[in-house]
């Protein structure tokens, strides 16, 4: 389980959060090598969709801006294309750091505020439960996660698209698609979690 980061410091550039990232986030030990050239943000195909972009996110980590970092859309918009990792002149594993920050944000309960995170959670629920993603259930669950009002607003807004998808067979009604051996999937996931826990423990010792 993740070690909780220190409370948000009342001064800029308190390094306790940066040190927490260094020690707890996958690839975080390389983050200090960032020289703020902007290659990662520039290389990101959805860089314009991010509130900060990876480069600035790293500067904010140094500056101790924990809440802003963990609430940032940047960590949820990453599509894992690895352009940034390939091109980073300092060899910083940008994608790994961002992905792991996202998962840490989930564990630490920051996700409620971030729409992308709620969507990811719904997506993950479907994949874990059925072994497949069911567009109808994922969207329904995602819409609900924002509260009743948000559910109705989003549902109505996207109704036309949903009907179109049903018509063209891109979405179906009725029982969700499932894989055959759901028990097997659960066993695989449990094993993966066990390995993960063991490795992260080993990594800390």
């Amino acid at each position: 389980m993740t070690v909780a980061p220190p409370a948000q410091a009342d001064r800029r550039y308190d390094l306790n959060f940066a040190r927490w990232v260094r020690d707890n986030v996958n690839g975080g030990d390389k983050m200090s090598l960032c020289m703020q050239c902007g290659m990662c943000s520039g290389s990101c195909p959805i860089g314009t969709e991010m509130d900060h972009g990876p480069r600035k996110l790293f500067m904010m980590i140094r500056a101790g801006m924990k809440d802003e970092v963990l609430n940032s859309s940047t960590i949820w918009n990453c599509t894992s294309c690895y352009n940034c990792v390939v091109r980073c002149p300092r060899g910083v594993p940008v994608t790994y750091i961002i992905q792991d920050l996202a998962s840490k944000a989930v564990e630490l309960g920051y996700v409620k505020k971030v729409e992308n995170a709620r969507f990811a959670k719904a997506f993950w629920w479907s994949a874990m439960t059925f072994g497949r993603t069911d567009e109808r259930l994922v969207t329904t669950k995602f819409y609900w996660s924002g509260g009743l009002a948000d559910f109705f607003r989003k549902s109505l807004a996207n109704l036309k698209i949903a009907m179109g998808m049903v018509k063209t067979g891109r979405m179906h009604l009725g029982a969700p698609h499932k894989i055959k051996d759901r028990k097997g999937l659960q066993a695989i996931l449990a094993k993966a979690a066990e390995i993960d826990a063991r490795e992260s423990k080993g990594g800390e010792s």
Partner: protein
Amino acid sequence: MANQGPTSQTILVVGGGIAGITAAVEAAETGYDVILLERGPALGGRVAQLNRYFPKLCHPTCGLEINFQRIRKLKNLRVVTMASVADVKGDKGNYTVSVCVAPRYVNAKCTACGACAEATEMEVDSAFNYGLSKTRAAYLPHEHAFPMRYVVAPEAIGTPEADKIKAACNYDAIDLDDAGETFEIACGAIVWATGWEPYDPLKLESYNYNLSPDIITNVQMERLANHDGPTGGRIVRPSNGEPVRKVAMIQCAGSRDRNHLPYCSRICCLGSLKHAAYVREQYAEAEVDIYYIDLRAHDKLEAFYQRVAADPQVHFIKSKPASIEIDDDGSPVLHGEDTLTREMYDRTYDLVVLATGMKPAAADGYAPPISVERDEYGFIVPSLDGDGGIIPAGVAAGPLDVSMSVQSATAAALKAIQAVGPRN
């Protein structure tokens, strides 16, 4: 050479660029016998290909001319062009060096009259102009060449063009059977001054150097701006010969990059500032954008930076551009993040100059063929306590600018005379 020939007190200098010339001349002016080897057909190396120097914006040929005058006066300095080192044996004070001289196909009878060049229509890529133009298959390396002697391109040998070239010479100077030669030199110290190669821009994949002639390197920019270059000194778009209005310089194109050259090449920031001055000198309306990570104008060169930065049409953007794409009409478009404003940009330019870094020639296969300490980049590390007779000078020792290379080479000349001991 005035004396009996090479002895163990002879100093051999390998590389006839500014560092090698300096080391050779400075050592020879203290009275020692010196042999200077140059791999190409003329002295001057990379600096002979530069248009001007920062920060004075003066011409490299000016200093080279003085050095050539010094060489002409020194009877104890012998220059051998087309020559490279094949093997080195021995120790400090007693080296035997095998020298390989590549064929020039033109002998010492050449008067540089130029009849051979006029006789042929055949053209080859001009290496001197970094491929931006062609040259006749019989050519003078450049207008300021030393020695002032023509070369026949190997591509012409065995073709009827070679016979035309030979027939045009009134001085029996064309030797189509030139097979080069190999000889040995005995010397006591070797100054290794083999300089650098520009980093290969094709390795910078996202910059798509090969997709547009309007993406050039900084060394090509020097030729483009030079009166003896492919355009007679007019800075134009190579694709269509049109004037340039918007020019981008990309710093650290390869340097400061774990995937390419991890070190800082030192000269590129100042080189691009100089290029901005070239462009602005020619075009009153031109805008120049310099994309940089850190602007490194060390020591007194800061004044040059301030000078260029004071020009309101030169802009500095702290950003390493992520990629260059080519738009529908063929213009290069830079894409990236401006780190100070957090804006993502897509900007179209007439000309993009990649400030590619310096790779030591010693890393690219021209290292001393004898054990010397080199760092992970290929730069030669000077031996401690002067116990080595192989002394690096200039960019063979590290990424240096011209002034520092001259300083390094002058120091190397001293190390060399120390290595061979008091003059007999």
